[in-house]
């Protein structure tokens, strides 16, 4: 079982340290890393069994979540999962070059995504399709990246959803800068304030950029929520390769709050992110949230997790499924009946079919696109390069046509 002080002692001078290289026996149970429990500091509003846990601190942040609103969260997660699975399947069918599955992280993404308001801004990494969905970015707009026909074509401003960032950690600094801008514009200070959420993984916490993002946000009081989805793995590397301590405790060293939430609990994620955003809106940012979750699928469709992790771990986590617990809660508390669940499934089917249809019919971009939007104000050399190349290509077409 993990605990707050999992791999260390907090203060100097008493007894030997428990070091990363020598995890305690409890940390390694029959090859199963002790990461399936979030520890005593885990904020949870809905247990894996669908039991509502009360929290004096966080309940107020979900006071408005009635049966209807809960249904909506459920629907979001089902649809996002369905989109994810469909895209995964389409990759297998050669329609996408690669897919980055979010399976298992629906609650973290839908919960945090739905906590944002229209004026807020999200800086995603590359796995945040669920957040994209909550920001109104159509799943279809995401496909281009993975079909390799574009690098992200949605209207980032309209949706408050920055382009995906692949270089680990970069977006954390970009988000800190953006949030500084929100503050400089006087958009921070009361409940109508604006804020930014940036997403990154457990592995990313090792990058210099994430640290610098923490430093900048702290010294400029930037309204930014650092939302770390700890899905236990950075490709093949478990969290122990990145940190001795639970990741939410990283914030301790910077002087802003860090909190661990059950990342498979959509209600918990919603509440905690709303709280964190609230702090930011009022000028009390930044805040670090560690959403304790699990990457149920491979890192990407090119990855083979059987090389590095045991299936026990996956089985353990299946019991904590983010969607199942909401279904149980909805059913048990009478907020939804079978007809509702059927209807959502049917909606997800339609969603998937549309996605499929769209994907199979996506046109390839024209070669001229290579040269588009390199510069906002152009570049005469590049214009010449473009012109020469396109006429070279046209030469082929003519030759082909001539024969």
């Amino acid at each position, binding site marked *: 079982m993990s605990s707050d002080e999992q791999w260390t002692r907090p203060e100097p001078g008493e007894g030997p340290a428990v070091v990363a290289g020598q995890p305690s026996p409890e940390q390694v149970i029959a090859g199963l890393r002790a990461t399936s429990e979030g520890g005593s500091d885990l904020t949870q509003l809905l247990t894996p069994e669908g039991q509502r846990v009360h929290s004096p601190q966080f309940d107020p942040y979900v006071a408005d979540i009635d049966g209807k609103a809960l249904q909506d969260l459920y629907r979001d997660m089902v649809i996002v999962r369905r989109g994810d699975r469909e895209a995964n399947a389409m990759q297998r069918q050669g329609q996408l070059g690669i897919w980055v599955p979010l399976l298992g992280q629906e609650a973290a993404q839908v919960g945090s995504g739905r906590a944002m308001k229209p004026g807020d801004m999200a800086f995603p990494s590359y796995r945040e399709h669920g957040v994209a969905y909550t920001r109104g970015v159509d799943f279809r707009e995401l496909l281009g990246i993975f079909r390799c026909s574009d690098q992200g074509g949605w209207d980032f401003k309209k949706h408050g959803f920055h382009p995906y960032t692949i270089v680990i950690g970069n977006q954390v600094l*970009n988000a*800190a800068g953006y949030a500084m*801008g929100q503050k400089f514009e006087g958009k921070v200070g009361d409940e109508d304030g604006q804020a930014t959420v940036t997403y990154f993984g457990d592995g990313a916490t090792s990058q210099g950029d994430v640290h610098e993002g923490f430093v*900048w946000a702290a010294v400029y009081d930037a309204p930014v929520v650092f939302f770390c989805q700890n899905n236990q793995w950075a490709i093949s590397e478990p969290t122990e390769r990145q940190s001795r301590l639970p990741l939410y405790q990283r914030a301790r060293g910077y002087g802003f709050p860090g909190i661990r939430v059950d990342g498979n609990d959509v209600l918990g994620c919603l509440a905690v992110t709303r709280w964190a955003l609230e702090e930011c809106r009022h000028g009390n940012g930044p805040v670090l949230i560690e959403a304790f979750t699990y990457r149920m699928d491979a890192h990407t469709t090119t990855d083979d997790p059987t090389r590095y992790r045991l299936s026990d771990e996956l089985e353990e986590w299946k019991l904590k499924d983010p969607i199942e617990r909401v279904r149980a809660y909805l059913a048990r508390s009478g907020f939804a009946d079978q007809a509702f669940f059927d209807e959502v499934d049917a909606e997800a089917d339609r969603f998937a079919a549309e996605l499929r249809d769209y994907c199979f019919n996506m046109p390839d971009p024209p070669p001229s696109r290579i040269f588009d939007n390199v510069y906002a104000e152009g570049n005469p050399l590049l214009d010449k390069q473009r012109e020469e190349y396109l006429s070279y290509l046209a030469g082929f077409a003519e030759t082909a046509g001539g024969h």
Partner: protein
Amino acid sequence: MSAPTKAGVDGTSTNVQNLTIGKALNLGLRAAMEADDKVIIMGEDVGKLGGVFRITDGLQKDFGEQRVLDTPLSESGIIGAAVGLAVRGFRPVCEIQFEGFIFPGFDQIVSQLAKLHYRSQGRIKMPVVIRVPFGGGIGAVEHHSESPESLFAHVPGLKVVSCSNPADAHWMIRQAIECDDPVLFFEPKKLYHSGALKAPVDTTATPGPLFASSVLRTGTSATVVAYGPSVKVALDAATAAAEDDISLEVIDLRTLSPLDLDPVFESVRKTGRLVAVSEASSESSLTSEIAARVQQECFYSLEAPVLRVTGFDTPYPPAKLEEYFLPDLDRVLDAVDRSLAW
């Protein structure tokens, strides 16, 4: 300090001041900040101190701490936050204290700054200027005298310029700030406060285009192309050569990416000879590019190969040796002689 303002010929008021490069930059930054309140300055020690070279002197006092930011000691942060601020609609002007300290920010420059416009299909603009004092000759310790501009010229999505005199310094920084693309702005640090280079700058003039080379001296025997601190060396060489009846045409590149080589091609078609001068090491550099393009465009005009006078392919040496490392008048003239004798 107010400068003399007088009515121009056409009745509009002009403002001509005798400025060093450093002061010309300072006034350029000030003008840009006055013109657009989205312009903000970010860097280490740019506030009260005015930057270690005093280029931002007085700006924090007049524009406040939210427009002139003394940042954490973190270059990836400076660029990375500037990127985010640009996404938000600001126009950040970043100061890197010395060129040798730009590398912690290299990733953000290459991966985000240079690519976001492309990635977002033009939806995101990146009007970020990165000011980089560069070059040697100031007797400094390691990492304070280098010339890394070629690295940036190689990266698509960036624009790279360098100024060599006060009027250009003033106008180029203003134009760079107005440019919607990211601009790496290389400043010849050893000339910042050179009294000898002081020159009248009309801060109300209408400047020529930013991304254009400029023929500073016409000549017929051979062409010398240079940029930044080497322009002075090239001009001095031309003056010296004239005494030997060698007539050098001197071109200040001004824009390193995109290159504006048309004036160079034209010149080489006339002189048949080219010497390219730069403090940077030569391997896979800007001067390589110049040679590569000129040999292609002027193949039948060249009477000698393009020759290069550059820093050696070594790390920048201890400054006691920099007079040997840096291209000087003699080395330029030697190359001209070799070219003429080819």
